[in-house]
Structures are given as structure tokens and as C-alpha cells.
């Protein structure tokens, strides 16, 4: 099929449906309510299930049940609602259940505002819920990329038996862009013979996260850690933009902000300032090796985020003391303009990269 103009939220929903995400449970919250609204109309057309649940606390547990029964269940929410889901996400990670959760990030903390932000990086990448677990985190920077990442998210959720978070933002959710739904093929998955589908012909299955014996619990913790190590080896995704050369500045940015950075890079070119962008697409696993490598080609590194500085911590860990790492951010729903980014880059270039 050709390209059609779609709102981000709706395109994400359609892509999930085509990827087999036919069981959606959600709660309205701005700026992503269109996902549920779209699915309320679409799911009956494809024989899927849409159900509005009473709270995000409950949603996460409905996902647990449905995933435990062997289906591709998913949800979407925005920052305050995602906070409420964190208990359930921790439980799903511990019980090794697959699910996909889309966070159309708004600003916070607290009730915050409804405009875009990248202030949920810590929550998504470092845990969010309690305990020793991680989620795979995918960060699209356009509506098309969000559409392309949904089938990958469902596949990896099933493959690793772990929650996968799509970290969008209010901009991606609300804007309309041309999209194409391309079919993707993945290697075969193992059958879900661990699911609670009725014990006919087999021993009973138990979906559980309680391990009172510390030796058993430690086994689980290390099993999960091994899973995340495997993700680090196999699942890294990133984009380098104008990074195949010596640089004055390496920008590190994701999502909507990365697009602003690309425009800034193009305009800096006219002023003979060589900037490049490393755009992580997986935030977990994080492309630390690549960032370190590219940082060696630059005089300094600049992390640009819609927050007061979250991903920059991981950039600093990756770069170490080998190069200066600076941060530029807007918050509260303010989206940085290319001009602001250019000004900051020039400030550090003129300052001799110090």
C-alpha cells in the first residue's frame, strides 16, 4: 500500500494491530487518548479486544493476566499513568511475561503539563518499578519510525519474555506525518508452552514472581541479568548522522529532539562547524561503545534533551573523562529550536571545547 497521512497515536495503534497486538487495555490520558479511541473502533474490525480499564494500576495487571494466558497484550499511557503501571511492569519482568507499553511522554513531575518532554528517561531505562529488572526501550523520532518499531517491540517482548517500552513523546503522538505500513518478517519464536491456557495434556503452569528462598530468588535475578546482557549484545540500534569524519561537536539526542539537532547540524555546516549526531534508537540497551568511539573524533560532546538532564548521565558514563560532556535542555513542554542548539554548540566551540 502507499503512504497515508496519519496522526502518530493512531499510526502506532494501527501498526500494533498489524503486528498481532490484538489485545489492548488502556485508560485515557492526554496526549495519547487517541490510541484507545482509535482501537475502540478498529479492534472490532479485526476481531481484537479493546477494553477501557478503570485505572492504569489495573491496566498493568490486566496485561499480566492476558500475557500470562499467552496473547500479545499491550497498552499505552503517558507519564503519570506510566508511573501507576510500574508495579505491574516489575511483576511482569519478574514473571517473565511479554508486553509492549507505549509511553507518549508529557512533562512532569506530578501532573505536569500535556506538552512533549523526555523527562521519563530514568523511569523507562533505569527501572521505574522496584527490583532488579530492566525493560528494552525503543525511542522513535518520527511517526514512520514509531510504526516500524511496533512489530519489533512485539517480537522482542515475546522473544525475551520481557516488557518492552516504546518511549515516544507528545509531539510524535500528536503530529501527522505520511506513513507506510511495511510487513516485517522475524525468525520463528518458541511456542508459549509456559502460558496458563488450561493444563490439558500437560503439567500445570504457574505464572509467579514470589521466591521466598533466597537461592531461588538469586537464580531468577541472575537469569534476568543474563537476558539483559544478551539484549546488550544483540539489540543495539542507533543512527549516526554526519559522524563519519572528524567533528567539532558530537551531539547525542533521541526522539523529537534528535530531529531538531539534525536541522541544527545542517545549518552549522554553512558556518563551517562540523557537528554530528549519534541518535540512540534503543535507550536500553544504550549504545555506550559507539558514543565513546565517536566522542574520540570530536572535541566535545553535547547531550540535548527535553529535560533537565537524564540521558546525559549515561553519555558521561560512556565517554568517561576522555572528552568534555555538556548538556542542553528545555523542559516544561518547551521544545528546543535549531537556533538554540546552534547557539549552544557555538558557545562551546568558541570556548575551545572547554
Amino acid at each position, binding site marked *: 500500500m502507499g503512504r497515508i497521512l496519519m496522526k502518530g497515536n493512531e499510526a502506532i495503534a494501527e501498526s500494533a494491530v498489524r503486528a498481532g497486538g490484538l489485545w489492548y*487495555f488502556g485508560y485515557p490520558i492526554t496526549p495519547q487518548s487517541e490510541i484507545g479511541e482509535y482501537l475502540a473502533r478498529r479492534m472490532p474490525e479485526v476481531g481484537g479486544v479493546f*477494553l477501557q480499564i478503570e485505572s492504569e494500576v*489495573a491496566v498493568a495487571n490486566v496485561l*499480566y*493476566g492476558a500475557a500470562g494466558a499467552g496473547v500479545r497484550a499491550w497498552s499505552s499511557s503517558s507519564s503519570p499513568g506510566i508511573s501507576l503501571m510500574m508495579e505491574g511492569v516489575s*511483576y511482569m519482568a519478574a514473571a517473565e511475561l511479554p508486553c509492549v507499553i507505549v509511553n507518549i511522554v508529557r512533562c512532569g513531575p506530578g501532573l505536569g503539563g500535556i506538552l512533549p518532554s523526555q523527562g521519563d528517561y530514568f523511569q523507562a531505562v533505569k527501572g521505574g518499578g522496584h527490583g532488579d529488572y530492566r525493560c528494552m526501550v525503543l525511542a522513535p523520532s518520527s511517526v514512520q519510525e514509531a510504526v516500524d518499531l511496533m512489530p519489533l517491540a512485539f517480537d522482542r517482548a515475546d522473544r525475551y519474555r520481557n516488557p518492552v517500552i516504546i518511549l515516544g513523546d507528545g509531539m510524535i503522538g500528536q503530529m501527522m506525518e505520511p506513513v507506510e505500513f511495511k510487513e516485517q518478517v522475524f525468525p520463528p519464536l518458541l511456542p508459549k508452552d509456559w502460558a496458563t491456557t488450561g493444563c490439558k495434556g500437560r503439567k*500445570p503452569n*504457574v505464572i*509467579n514472581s514470589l521466591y521466598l528462598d533466597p537461592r531461588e530468588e538469586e537464580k531468577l535475578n541472575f537469569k534476568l541479568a543474563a537476558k539483559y546482557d544478551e539484549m546488550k549484545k544483540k539489540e543495539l540500534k542507533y543512527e549516526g548522522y554526519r559522524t563519519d569524519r572528524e567533528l567539532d561537536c558530537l551531539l547525542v539526542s533521541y526522539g523529537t529532539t534528535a530531529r531538531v539537532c539534525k536541522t541544527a547540524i545542517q545549518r552549522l555546516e554553512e558556518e563551517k562547524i562540523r557537528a554530528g549526531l549519534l541518535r540512540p534508537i534503543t535507550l536500553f540497551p544504550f549504545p555506550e561503545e559507539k558514543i565513546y568511539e565517536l566522542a574520540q573524533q570530536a572535541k566535545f560532546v553535547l547531550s540535548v534533551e527535553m529535560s533537565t538532564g537524564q540521558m546525559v548521565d549515561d553519555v558521561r558514563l560512556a565517554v568517561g573523562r576522555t572528552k568534555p560532556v555538556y548538556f542542553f535542555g528545555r523542559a516544561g513542554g518547551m521544545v528546543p529550536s535549531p537556533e538554540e542548539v546552534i547557539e549552544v554548540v557555538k558557545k562551546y566551540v568558541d570556548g575551545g571545547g572547554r
Partner: protein
Amino acid sequence: MKVLFKRPESLSATPTHYCPGCTHGVVHRLIAEVIDELELRERTVGIAPVGCSVLAFNYFNFDFQQSAHGRAPAVATGIKRARPDLIVFAYQGDGDLASIGMSEIIHAANRGEKFTVVFINNAIYGMTGGQMAPTTMPGQVTTTTPMGRDVKDVGYPVRMCELIASLRTPAFVERVAVHNPKQVINARRALKQAFIHQRDNVCFTFVEFLSTCPTNWGFSPIQATKWLEENMLPYYPVKNFKIPENTGG
């Protein structure tokens, strides 16, 4: 030789960790008897709560999911909406269902999700060591009401059957008790009716079991049955509160 009474197939041989005289064991067995009788074992999924019965999955011979505290009705909703052909029951205590899980149970009931709830009301929090529950009786001494529950401060015990029966959505709602054999026989009948409704895809089903907690009440098992009879029965009447309309049942 005729076998008149033995452990049902759906109940595993694992000895339970429950206290002597705790009626969890009785209710577990009733569930297993009914599941066996209705031949539902191979398509049943139970949901264990957080509470004394958190390890319930060790005591049954069918699929189980262990759920977060209070969330069993949401988990049940997920299973039932994913696989409507499965028989699903949520097994919950008073903290799980009537405190932290109050929202989940009311909304699952209100949506008319077609699973069965087994609600163990023993008027106290067992697993955590005997704190007040929403169902604790006025004047009842617990570790967080050492002077007895003061209704002027924390209100009256919650009657879940009455609350759920007040919803418009059709349901089967009944309160039973398990502290003596006569009540056990009645409880089994109500529980079987609930599972029959689920098997026939009729409605949300809720059975509240008045239960004893000898350890945290501070009584022997026999004394505990007397305390239940004298203090809980008058406030929590054993009766049916709601039957689904137009089913003749």
C-alpha cells in the same frame, strides 16, 4: 469398598502451610471438589493473591497465576478477555479484595467480567500478623487497633456482598460460612452454583466465605468457630444477595 470422602483430584497432595484450624484449607478443598465434579480442571486458571494464600498455586492441580496485592480481578479480566473459554477464579482475602483491591473488584464486577471470586473474610490481616482489615468488627482488638476498632475513627466494617449486589450489572452474589459442617455443605452448594454460571457464561460470580483466623484472633480453632458464630454472623448475614436475571437460577 466404596470411597465416600477423599482428597479431590484438583487438590494437590502438598500439605498446606496454613495454621491449624484455618478454614483456607476447607475452602481450597471445596473449590477442588466443585472443579472436579464439573470436570473443569483442564481449563481452569486460578489466581492467588497476596496474603496467607499467596502460595495457593502449590495446593491445586491446575494452571495458576500469582497476582499483585489487590489486582486479582484485573488479572482475571486479562485472562478471561484473552481466553474466554478458560474457567478463571480469583481467590482473595480481606486486605487484598476490600482494601488495596477495592477499585479492581468493584470495576470487574461492574463490567460483569465472567469470572468467579472466592472472597475469604476473616475480619483481619492474617499473613502480615493480625492488623485491622476493612472487615474487622467494631471493638475487635488487632495489632493496629489495640484498643479495639473504634468506628468513630475508622468507620464500620465493609460488607462486600451488599456493596457488589448494589451494582446494576447482573451477577451472582452470595455469602456463606465454613465454620461448621452444616455451613460447609451450604457453602459448597453456592460455590458450585457460581462455577456453573461461569461455565455457562452467564455473569460475574462472587462468593464471600466467612472464615476463621484462630492465630490472629487469639483463639483455639474451636473457640474461633464460636467467635465467628457470635460476632460475625449477625453483622454478615449468610444469604444470597443477587442472582443473574433471566436465567431462572
